[in-house]
Every structure is written in C-alpha cells, then in structure tokens.
C-alpha cells in the first residue's frame, strides 16, 4: 500500500519536468523567456548606449545601417536601436506583468466569490463582467486610452480594465466546480467561515487554470501594448517601446528597413516565447490530459 502511494507521488513529481523535457518547442520558449527576463534586468549593463533609451539624440548620426558600432543601426534621430530594443524588453515585460497582476487581482476574487456563492451574488458579478466583455477588448482599450490620454501608464490601465473579466469568468467556473466538492462541505462542518473556506480551500484549488491563462495572455498583452503604442495611444517618445519604434520606422521602411524590423522581431520573439511556455504549462498542469510524446 505504502509503496504504491510513494510510487504514485514520485510519478506525479516527475510529471512536470518530464512533460517539458521531450518538448523542444516549450523548452525553446522557456529559454527565450529567460533571456528576455535577463535582458530586462541587466539592460543598463548590456546596452552599448544606455542614454539612447532616454532623452539623448544625435541628429547627425541619423538612420545609419547596422554596423559594428550600432548592431541594429540607428533611428531617425540617431539613437542606437540595439540599446532601445534591449530597454524595450523592460517596458514590455513591466507593462505585461502589471496588466496581468491587476487583471488577476480584480478578476479572480470576483470570479471566485461568484462561483462559490452562486445565486444573486453570482448574477450581479457576472452581469457586470458581461458588460465589460460586450466591448471588443482592443476597441475599449483604444477608447480608454483616448479618453485618459496617451501614455504607457494609461495603456496599462486600459488593458487591465479590458482583461479582468476573462479572469473573473475563468475563476468563476473553476470555483463553482470546487464549491460543490465534498471537502468544502466538510470544511463547513468544521465550522469554517465562508471567508476562510474561500481563502484556504476554494482559491488554492482554482488557481491552476489561472496560472496557465496568465502565461498564455502575457504574449497577448505584449502584442496589444505594442499595437496601442503603434497607433499612438500607448507609450510616447522617447520611451523605448517596441510598438512605438515600429511606428516610427514604418515611414521609411522601404529605404531604411532596420528601424522597424528589429523591434518587430523582438515583439514576435516575446509573444511566441510566452505562448509556447503557456502551452507547455497547460499540458503539464492539466492532470486530465495524458501526455504522449
């Protein structure tokens, strides 16, 4: 009996790395992600011209093609694009993290409360959620960014406002299923208050899909932030934001391809890395799915 139990645990413990070990796409995504995080943290050390990520301009040095001094070339005001792309990692990861943390902090408690209590509370919370979901996310973000004014902070806020309802829905479904389980009933029979039952029993058992969704959404947020900035409704110059850099570069893309291309590749890499890792997490954490590889 004991041996069987231990064998089962060992297998489960191995499952996560095992599932990822055979999957080179997920591993590759994870590796890229790790690099992005390192770049974001050590941007000041890695960037050859850190001041170019801020206010510096060198008009005489404008639109130089990639060279040994400027690996990715320079933009229209002579800033080193390589340095700006490195710093851009910071901006994108920061915004992405803030949006997701805010969305989860608002959406998950509301969703869990709706799913756990059901009835009237559920109806009220979910109808409010429906109202937010009724607007196309990008359109709502555009409108909010337009009303609040264009800045990286407001774009973050706008995205958080459009993103939380998805987490509320996800958490609600999960919490509703957990609320019906017997250990919730037995927690009640032990005299726990609803507040404690939610905090200690419902929430921890509802988080797995939320974590997976966060990793999948991170890529989406990066793309959307870049999109807003590209349209002029997000970060403003001189912020080294990838979408904004692409927007600047598109005017002379046919003659000076490097200005728009390198930030564009960065967006692609970051979004793809998050998606691959998210897929991998989903496979590894979903106990219902048997992994054949």
């Amino acid at each position: 009996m004991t041996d069987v139990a231990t064998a089962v645990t060992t297998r489960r413990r191995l499952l996560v790395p095992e599932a990822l070990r055979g999957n080179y796409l997920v591993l590759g995504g994870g590796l890229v992600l790790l690099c992005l995080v390192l770049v974001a943290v050590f941007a000041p050390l890695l960037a050859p011209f850190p001041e170019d990520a801020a206010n510096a301009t060198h008009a005489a040095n404008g639109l130089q093609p990639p060279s040994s001094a400027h690996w990715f070339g320079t933009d229209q005001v002579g800033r080193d694009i390589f340095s700006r792309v490195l710093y851009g990692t910071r901006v994108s990861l920061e915004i992405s993290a803030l949006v997701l943390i805010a969305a989860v902090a608002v959406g998950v408690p509301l969703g869990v409360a709706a799913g756990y209590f059901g009835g009237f509370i559920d109806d009220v919370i979910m109808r409010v959620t429906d109202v937010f979901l009724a607007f196309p996310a990008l359109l709502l973000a555009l409108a909010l960014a337009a009303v609040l004014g264009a800045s990286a902070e407001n774009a973050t806020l706008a995205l958080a406002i459009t993103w939380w309802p998805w987490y509320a829905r996800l958490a609600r479904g999960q919490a509703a299923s957990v609320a019906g389980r017997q250990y919730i009933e037995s927690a009640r029979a032990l005299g726990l208050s609803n507040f404690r039952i939610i905090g200690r029993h419902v929430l921890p058992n509802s988080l797995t899909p939320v974590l997976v969704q966060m990793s999948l959404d991170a890529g989406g947020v990066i793309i959307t932030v870049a999109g807003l900035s590209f349209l002029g409704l997000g970060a403003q110059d001189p912020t080294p934001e990838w979408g904004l850099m692409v927007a600047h570069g598109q005017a002379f893309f046919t003659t000076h391809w490097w200005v728009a291309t390198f930030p564009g590749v960065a967006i692609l890499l970051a979004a793809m890395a998050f998606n691959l890792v998210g897929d991998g997490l989903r496979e590894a954490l979903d106990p219902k799915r048997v992994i054949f590889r």
Partner: protein
Amino acid sequence: MKLEVRDLSVAFGEQTVVRIEALDLSDGEVLGLAGESGSGKSTLALAILGLTGQMGATVAGSIQLDGRELVGMPEQELRIIRGRRIAMVFQSPVSAFNPVIRIGDLFLRALRHHGVERADARERANQALREVFLPPEMLARYPHQLSGGQAQRAAIALAIALRSELLIADEPTSALDVTVQAEVIEVIRRLQVQERLGVLFISHDLAVLGELSDTLVVLRAGEQVESGPAAQVLEAPQHAYTRELVASMPKLGGALS
C-alpha cells in the same frame, strides 16, 4: 451531551424533505438512521449542523443541544459548535479532504481554528490517530496517498482531536469494501464505549445499523415511519415499510429467489 430533536421539518420552497417527530441522543449512544437514497437522511444531518439554511432551506421546529436551541441560532455561534461539539464524517472519505493540504496541516488548522495552542494541537493530533489505529506518519501525507479506510479513520480522528461530543456519520462505510467497513465500525464502536461519544449513524445498510445502533429510526420520503430500540425495530417491525426493508436484507442460509 444531549441532543433533542422535536417536530423538525426542513423544506426547500414548497417541498418538505424531512419531517421528524422526535429524536434523542445522549453520550455513549448510537442512534441509527435508516432509509433509502433520497429519504432525507443527509438533509437531517446537515440540518443538525445548521448547514441547510445556506442551501436555501427553511427549518422549523426544534433542535436542542444540551438545552440550547440550534434552530435560528446565529451563524457565528453555530460555527463554534460545528467541529468543536458536533463533528461530521462523510461518505466518500478521500474527497472529504482538500487535496492540496497535508492531513497533518489540516488537523493543525482545524485545531487552531477552534482555539487549541500549537504545541497542544500536535500532541492531540498524534493521540487521536493512535485511537483510530493510524501511525503518526499519516500526518505527513496528502489525502490521495491514503486508502479509503485510512482516510475515513483520519476523518474520525479529526473529530476525536477536536473533542467533539457528537459524531454524525453520514454513510461512512458505504464507499468502502466489507473488511475496511468492519475496521471503521470497530473504531466507531470503541469510541462510543471508551470516550462516551454520541453517534448519529446514517446508513441504508440495516445489517451495519443493527450491529451498531442502540436506537433505530427509519425514514421514508422524509417521514419518520418507525423508531425504537434497534433490536425491537429489526425483529418486530411495526410499519409495513420497515418490514419490507428487513425482508430485503440478505440472510445466510436463506433461499435464493
């Protein structure tokens, strides 16, 4: 401890699902509650814990624990009684434990919740496990690492650790195979005798009930159809339904129909 239920009715909307004239249970007694699925056995158990209100039911009548009325008692006071004075054990033992919490942590949390000091709680948990013949290593395990019988005994141990006076066991053996059932019943019987625990034992299995109960109450469609000393109810059933139930029990040496 003395539990007295009088003229209790539990209704969901228009539908009355349980109607009980009288139930009495004292320390060291086992009250058996028999009836088929859907006869209101579990609803009655939840009503005694004051948990039917949250499910949207209307409870009328009286449930007294040592003379204190539980019907209409504020939720905050009920929460102190739940677990601390009345404990409940459920049908499917493993799923009655939160899968992400170790058994030991659950014990500590439950004991701390009911005001037991940390050092004291650990000692109580170990002692309670001994009483149900489980080794202390069980405290380090997660629920899925326990067998059904072990989990059910752990659930009973939790009631002991909390020094509950009344144990409501809702079909505690129905999900277990026969030899494991015998272990669990043995544990409950021992506690009843040694610790003077009062037990409300709910089951559809008359053989188990006959073995364990002092008093037996038979429910059908929420109505109390018969009650009395267990031996009397089983040997000389007064009500036609009880006679049918008794007749449906398989007997050794009986003819196969």
